[in-house]
């Protein structure tokens, strides 16, 4: 790579100029900007925030939320407390405790799911790594709190948001997820139904299984 | 008379401070105060033009020059205690007190000056101008020559000083292009001993 002979002068400095011409040109530019700021939208891009809000793109991500199906946040929570997000989270702002029944058996749902949003850096890796379509990035942004510690530590009740909310927030992504989940759930239902039918036909004593849903761990 | 009675103690106090105070900047500022108060007195007795010129030249130029020199030479912070050097004190007083006595003596003997001479009315600017360019024209010319000489002289002094410091000289820029001389500047820049401020 060698300098070529292709010599090009930059816009123009004339060999002779009257002192002050360059400054006057600059003043013309500023004057143009000032006048055009009154009638050209590209010049005056200010959005007066609390009254008007700039549109948020569907991709915008802020802090994570947990998605649940149906009406009940407790019952419909997709999260299985697998702690993948907890381990992958770069600033380690997620804290999960698995809920167990009296026998110590995993109930596959979180007893505690905390996200410290004062630590979270909105990277979205938790949403990316989640295999259960449970955690997504929220678009909510007015989150300032008087209480710096407890106010910014989001618990499960604060984090859980319905699938409808997700659908409203990011229709495309949520639509894909919903379609995929529907297929999966249908398949699972079919498998389950087949299994149930088989069990029924075996007609042996099979305890009536609650048809909640079982996600593969 | 009232003005004088009010102002003269202030003038003397300020002058005393200018002579006595240890920190040079205080002394310079009190000199400025002395000159300002004197100018106020001039204004009070009707010598408006002189008073304003005194303000402009002494406060605006001379005091500023002195203060600026103190800043440049960074002697603004050193205290200079006359009182700590008794010998100097004694010699100084020994030399100045006789002068003061002689002056006061001659003033006290000058009682036979025309007493209470008709107070000169405040002069007008036109009067002053006329006098300046007729009666005193040679003096004006002389002062003009003097001031020109001073301006050139001061400029030459300053210029000589400028040339002696390497600061932003054209040669500095051209020297940069002679690479071999400065190939060492990477190591050179770390050569300085640590300064107290570096910690």
């Amino acid at each position, binding site marked *: 790579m060698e300098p070529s002979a292709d010599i090009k002068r930059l816009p123009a400095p004339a060999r002779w100029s009257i002192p002050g011409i360059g400054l006057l040109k*600059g003043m013309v530019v500023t004057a143009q900007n000032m006048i055009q700021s009154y009638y050209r939208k590209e010049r005056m891009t200010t959005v007066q925030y609390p009254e008007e809000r700039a549109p948020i793109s569907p991709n915008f*991500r802020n802090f994570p939320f947990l998605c649940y199906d149906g009406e009940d946040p407790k019952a419909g929570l997709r999260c299985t407390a697998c702690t993948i997000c907890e381990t992958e989270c770069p600033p380690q702002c997620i804290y999960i405790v698995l809920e167990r029944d009296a026998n110590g058996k995993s109930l596959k749902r979180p007893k505690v799911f905390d996200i410290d949003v004062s630590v979270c850096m909105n990277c979205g*890796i938790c949403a990316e790594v989640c295999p259960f379509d449970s955690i997504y990035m929220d678009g909510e942004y007015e989150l300032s709190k008087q209480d710096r510690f407890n106010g910014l530590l989001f618990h499960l009740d604060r984090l859980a948001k319905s699938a409808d909310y997700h659908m409203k927030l990011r229709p495309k992504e949520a639509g894909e997820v919903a379609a995929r989940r529907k297929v999966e759930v249908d398949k699972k239902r079919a498998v389950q139904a087949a299994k149930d039918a088989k069990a029924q036909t075996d007609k042996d004593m099979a305890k009536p299984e609650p048809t909640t849903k079982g996600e593969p761990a | 008379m009232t003005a004088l009675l009010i102002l003269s103690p202030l003038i003397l106090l300020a002058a005393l401070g200018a002579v006595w105070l240890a920190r040079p900047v205080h002394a310079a500022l009190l000199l400025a105060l002395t000159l300002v108060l004197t100018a106020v007195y001039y204004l009070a007795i009707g010598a408006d033009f002189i008073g304003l010129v005194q303000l402009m030249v002494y406060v605006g130029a001379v005091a500023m020059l002195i203060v600026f020199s103190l800043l440049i030479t960074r002697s603004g912070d050193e205290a200079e205690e006359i009182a700590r050097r008794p010998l100097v004190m004694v010699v100084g007083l020994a030399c100045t007190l006789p002068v003061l006595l002689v002056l006061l003596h001659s003033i006290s003997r000058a009682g036979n000056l025309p007493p209470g001479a008709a107070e000169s009315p405040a002069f007008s600017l036109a009067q002053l101008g006329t006098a300046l360019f007729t009666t005193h024209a040679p003096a004006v010319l002389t002062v003009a020559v003097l001031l020109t000489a001073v301006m050139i002289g001061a400029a030459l002094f300053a210029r000589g000083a400028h040339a002696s410091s390497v600061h932003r000289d054209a040669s500095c820029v051209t020297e940069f292009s002679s690479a071999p001389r400065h190939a060492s500047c*990477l190591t050179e820049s770390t050569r300085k001993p640590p300064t*107290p401020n570096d910690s």
Partner: protein
Amino acid sequence: MISDPATSLTSAVLAPAVDDDQLLHVSLGPQHPSTHGVFRMNVVLDGETVVRLKPVFGYLHRNHEKIAEGTSYLASMPYTDRLDYICPLSNNWAYARAVEKLAGIEVPERAEFIRVILAELTRLINHTAFAGFILGDMGAWGSALMYAFREREKILDLFEELTGARMMANFMRFGGCRNDLPDGWSAKVSKLVDEYGPFLDEMEKFLVGNEILLSRTLNVGSLPKEVLINGGITGPMLRAAGVPYDIRKVDPYGIYERFDFRIPLGATGDCYDRIMIRFLEMRESLKILHQALDQLPDGSFIHPKAKIRNFKPPLGEAYARIEGPKGELGFHLISDGSTRPYRYRIRPPSFINLTLIEDMCLGLDLADVVVILGSIDIVLGEVDR
């Protein structure tokens, strides 16, 4: 170590012997309006002339490299955004390239195009903001800065639409990008690229002939080529001095070989050249953007086998570099076969460019220090890491 003092740069400036107590020790920073962050320079002044200058780094040290050695490869990606936060996407790219080299991952063509587009947009952002910042350092009351930020905002809006965040993009993935371009995004970029030329014209009209700017920058802060090369300076600073070194040309990466663009070179390497080189580079970036947008192929935006979780590159070592807007940005990774890098090291252009600041500033005014610092174009997030 010390050569003949008579020939050394510093002693030439210090020619009149100066007592140390006559000098003024000023600490520029860490809280100072124009140190571009928490950076500190211990300046020793004779009058207003700099006789010594010692940069003090580390006020923004965040232990990034060590943290990265304790987390998975992917978890370091969002941290690279925070290195040079003016241009996060080129940091993403450099890191992604290093990991791809380490693991031998192929990148689909479309992803390469997306990366080039983003990197060149980032270059536009950086150089535009640079012009504003340096004018601010010179004391222009923010007009140029505001114009620059106005245009930068437009690009940031596009980034937000694509990556979900304006600055902290976290967009590149090993083997591609995180998501595909949204509908109509490339059309918006085309429109922006078309409008950027007139904006650059306006900025050049505003700045190029400005007599005060000329007198502040001409012959200020230049160093001989050899010193710059020995000091490891890269990027526009080096090219302003006339050294044809641009990694996009000398060690082409990605798909830069397919594009037709040129590398502008200055002659003296003073602050004025540094400004002008950046303006010329922006024009070349626009050319690249035009070509890339025209040729943007369809296809996958990420390698189908790219792993997100449990990513374990084979044992080995890789160094990958790109031509970041500020210079050569490189990542050196050593893998021990686990999910975490054994060694993670960044070559930050801001930091290395900053190391020669004393040599550039000696013998100049305090006001020049600020301009020179501005012309180096540092971001403290990258300097201190």
